[in-house]
């Protein structure tokens, strides 16, 4: 759900789009936006499952303070997706529990 026109911000004039993958599925993102924004825009809200109960978690503070939005990015777990910009070809995975480093799998 992207805001294409806005009474104060005006029209969205960002042109550069890139492709990232989320759990193997490709989605479009705006170059430079945080991972969390790209996921929310694509309707993806569940970012990880907690270690003890497997409960779903997503964005809470959106400014990099609470760590609720962490996911595994390019094999690196616990990445704060709300303050990490997307990059072409980035591989994002729903993190299960504490996550695993690429070389641990």
């Amino acid at each position, binding site marked *: 759900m992207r*805001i294409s*026109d806005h*009474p*104060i911000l005006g029209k969205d004039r960002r042109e550069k789009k890139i492709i990232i993958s989320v759990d193997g599925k490709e989605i479009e993102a705006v170059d430079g936006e945080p991972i969390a924004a790209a996921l929310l825009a694509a309707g993806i809200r569940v970012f990880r499952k907690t270690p003890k109960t497997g409960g779903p978690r997503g964005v809470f503070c959106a400014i990099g303070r609470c760590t609720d939005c962490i996911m595994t990015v390019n094999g690196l777990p616990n990445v704060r997706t709300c303050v990490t910009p997307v990059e072409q070809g980035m591989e994002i995975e729903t993190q299960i529990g504490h996550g695993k480093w690429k070389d641990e799998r």
Partner: protein
Amino acid sequence: MSKGIKKTGVPSWEELKDTSGLPDEKRLEEGPVAFIECVQEIPCNPCELACPSGAITVGRPITNLPRIEGEKCTGCSLCLAACPGLAIFKVHKNYSETTSLVEFPFEFLPLPQECEIVRCVDRYGRFVTEGRVIKVKRLKKYDLTPLITIEVPKIFFSDVRSIEREVCNND
């Protein structure tokens, strides 16, 4: 009996009349004039600075409620766009024998078109009457606060303060 601004977010008639922000009956009959519906003491005075005719006074401390001097008000609408609280309106009670004009700030999309028939609402967002859009002003000095003027039946000039907002889907 309205419960007032602290309970409902809408000022009651008693609260509005208690301020000196509304013009007197005589001035209202004479032509377009500002209605300042600001009922709480907050540190704020852009309306005072925006008025080119010196018709609005806040003074010091800046928490004073704004007072309007009707005779000085020329109906220029600058204060409507300047108020950060969007609490100022303009009323032209005797636009015609049967209709009045109400001008209000409206920061939503889509903006209506001039001549369009619109659904007009009161301070509670309740539908009151249909009205016609006379003007939509988007001047640079308003800093992205459009001002809309609507024509409504005269009996509604003191109730109508906005139009229904369309929920637009962006996707």
